[in-house]
Structure formats: C-alpha cells, structure tokens
C-alpha cells in the first residue's frame, strides 16, 4: 500500500479545516443551483430546453462547477483553521441557500465565493475554486440581470454591426435601433436572445474555468485573454446575425437547431483556444516532463 494521500478523506480524529467547510458549502450551493434547473426541466409545464443542457443543467456550467469543487478539494488537508469570520460567512451562505428561490444557490455561491477569493487568496487552489464558483454564479444567475440591464443598449449595437456586415454584400440594408431592414422586403429584430451577452458569458466561463484548472494561480495578463474572448464572440455573433438575416430561408434553417448548435460550438472552440494559448507554457511544459 502506498502512503496516504494528502487529500484522502480525513480521519475522525482531526478537526475539519477551512477547505472542508468551504467544499461542503460550495457543494450545497451547487446542488441547489443545479437542482432548480433540474426541477424546471422536469416541470411538465416547461416550454423548452436550452441547447447544451444535461437534464436542464447548462453543460458548461456543470463542468465548471465540477472543476471548482475539484480545485477546492485540492486544498483539503492543509489544516488551515476555520476563523470566526469563516463561520460568519458560512452562516450567511447557509441562510441565502435556504431562501425559497431558484437563484438562492447561486446567491450563496456568490457570497461564499466572493469571500473566499479575498480571504483565502494565499491558499491558491481554494481561491481558484472559489473564483470559478463565482464565475458559474455570474453565468447562471447574475448574467440574466446583466442581460436585462444592457439589452436596450447592446441590441442596437449588435444590429448595427450585423447590418454593417450585411451592407458590405448587399445594397439597401438599413438599421433603426435593433431592427435591421435587410433590403429584401423583410426586417430582422435583434432581441435579447440574439445579443452577444449570453455567448460572451459562456465564452468567458469556458476560458476562465479552463485556465484555473490548468493554472490555479492568477496571472496579471489574464484580462487580455478575456478581452480576446469578448472580441471573438462579438465577431462570431455578428457573422451569425448577418448570415441568418441574409434570406428568410437562411433564417429558418440557421436561427435555431443546427445553426444555433454550430454557433455554440464556435464560441466554445474559440474560447478554449484562447485559454489553451494563455496556458500554453503550463500545458506544454507538462507534456515535456512526461
């Protein structure tokens, strides 16, 4: 038998440490957050299922949540004591999670994640896991608030970009607010579901979770990766809007179903590509060591 791992399940003799407490609470937050999605999915009155979902749970968010739990788990066994402030935030998180609202789990993850990112910044795996949990909460809950707040501003911007691209290939294209007059006798309305915010949040989550999984320690150059993801997603979404506006047939064939899946894949592939580029030193040096 080999020597016991640092991360093996703790014996009954030792006390729980900070990472044990945070891991347990993050797990409860995730169970509540994703549990609400599963409940909504199993609701017989549910009207539809989003693409890329597993039993109603967003597959990317689920994978990122698992990465976050694994990162926090790596911090266990460090015997860092639980402070009074930790207990206070744990109580606040538990109170938030108990609220009877679909977003309560993500509210708890936001409180605990925000605290852990700051208070446990020297415990790199724990802080990294907390940051990923925070990103999942933003993607799952706060992103909807952001979408509501910025759609009136962002939708005309996306429409302007798509109309500009369409106008390079066709005469008579005009834009008023979030309405694109295609010059072909029909208009396309860029609604909240079409704006780049949601795919942008997906791309940022994919990039952030992948980066933290490969390199838990934060680097100052990372905002440049996020900016690259944002720019890439805006380009992908602009091309998508322009292509679906090209003709009614294009719209019917590509707006949903295969077209929607292709756009989702393009966003994820680009975002992971950026993350791989950002962590190339860690990835390639690991390969070299093997």
């Amino acid at each position, binding site marked *: 038998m080999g020597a016991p791992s640092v991360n093996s*399940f*703790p*014996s*009954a003799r*030792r*006390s*729980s440490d900070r990472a*044990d*407490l945070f891991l*347990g*609470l993050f*797990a*409860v937050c995730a*169970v*509540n957050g994703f*549990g*609400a999605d599963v*409940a*909504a999915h199993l*609701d017989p009155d549910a009207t539809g299922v989003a693409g890329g979902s597993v039993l109603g749970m967003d597959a990317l968010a689920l994978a990122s949540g698992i990465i976050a739990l694994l990162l926090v788990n790596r911090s266990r066994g460090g015997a860092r004591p*639980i402070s009074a402030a930790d*207990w206070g935030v744990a109580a606040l998180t*538990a109170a938030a*999670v*108990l*609220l*009877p*609202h*679909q*977003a*309560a*789990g993500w509210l708890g993850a936001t409180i605990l994640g925000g605290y852990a990112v700051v208070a446990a910044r020297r415990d790199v795996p724990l802080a990294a896991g907390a940051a990923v949990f925070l990103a999942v909460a933003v993607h799952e809950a706060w992103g909807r*608030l952001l*979408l*509501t*707040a910025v*759609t*009136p501003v962002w*939708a*005309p911007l996306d429409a302007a970009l798509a109309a500009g691209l369409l106008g390079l290939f066709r005469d008579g294209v005009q834009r*008023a*607010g*979030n*309405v694109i007059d295609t010059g072909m006798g*029909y*208009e396309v*309305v*860029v*609604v*909240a579901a079409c704006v780049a915010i949601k795919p942008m949040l997906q791309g940022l989550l994919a990039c952030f979770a992948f980066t933290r999984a490969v390199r838990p320690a934060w680097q100052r150059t990372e905002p440049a990766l996020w900016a690259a993801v944002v720019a890439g997603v805006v380009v992908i979404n602009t091309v998508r809007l322009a292509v679906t506006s090209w003709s*009614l047939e294009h719209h019917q064939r590509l707006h949903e179903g295969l077209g929607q899946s292709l756009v989702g894949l393009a966003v994820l592939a680009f975002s992971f590509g950026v993350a791989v580029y950002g962590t190339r030193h860690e990835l390639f040096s690991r390969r070299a060591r093997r």
Partner: protein
Amino acid sequence: MNFSPAALAASVVLLAAVSLPGKVAPKGDAGAPDAVAPTDAAAAALVAAGWTDGGTVDLTRSGAFRARALYHPRCDGSLLLAPVAANGELRPLLAELAGPEGLLVYRQDGRTLASPPWLRIYLGRKVRDLARGLGLDGPSVAPVLAVVAMDACTRAALPWAPPAAPAARA
C-alpha cells in the same frame, strides 16, 4: 470552534436536504407576467371611448411579437397595444412603428409613462417571487403595456393624458 469531519458532513447533508425542496416546489407565476389581462383591460377602455377592436396583429413575420390593434373612426392609422418585457427588446421596434408623427408611451397600473423604471420592475418581480416562496404577498409589480399611436390623428384621439414632460434642468 472545532467540528469533526463527520459532524460537518452531516450538517452539509442536512442543509442540502432542507434547502433543496424550496427550489423544487412549483414556481407559481414567477415567469413572464400575465400580458392578456392588462391588454384586454386597456382595449376595453379604448372601445368604451369610441375605438374599434381590430384583434391581434403580428409585429414580426415569425409571429413572436404580437399586438392588439385598435382603430378610431376619425383616423386612418391604428393604435397598437403590446405587452413589453423588462429587457426592452421590443422598444426600438415599437419606436420605429410610431415614427416621427406617432407616439410611444407605456401604461402600467393605470398610469401613462414615457419610460417605465425597467430595472426596478425586473428586480421587483424577483423580490415578489422570493416573497411568494416564503408565503408572503410581496410587492405588486404590474405588467407594462406599450401604447403605439401610429400617426398624429390616433395620437390626438388617445383618451389617456400624455406623460408629464421631464423637468428642465437648471
């Protein structure tokens, strides 16, 4: 305070077991606000003021956005009543339909508004859903109805007082 791992695990499992039912319970009407009742009420008020109900029209070819059209005997143009979401995705389209001669205003809870407080409405709905989950009444957040007068004639025939102009800055 020291917690044994077994005690911590038991507490976590208990917390999950107690908290999860609140998310699985039926949501009630936490989703989209009821758009039919306020549209019907506003249409009835207009019919009482001499307008003719022209039924539902599609605002887009896909039929995703619809409005109730009403006609006044003195006017050629129509008046549209359209429920709008707090994310404002329909507002530019409605503004374009109104054009320079027409008027786009909003009706909420019996008041005519130039621009409703969208974010407060969105957050109010979330607070209301939370309060209902706790078994409380919660704040009442009335749906918002867009009123589009498509020309000067329909604009003049509107029975509702136009919203007050914003106060000039000193």
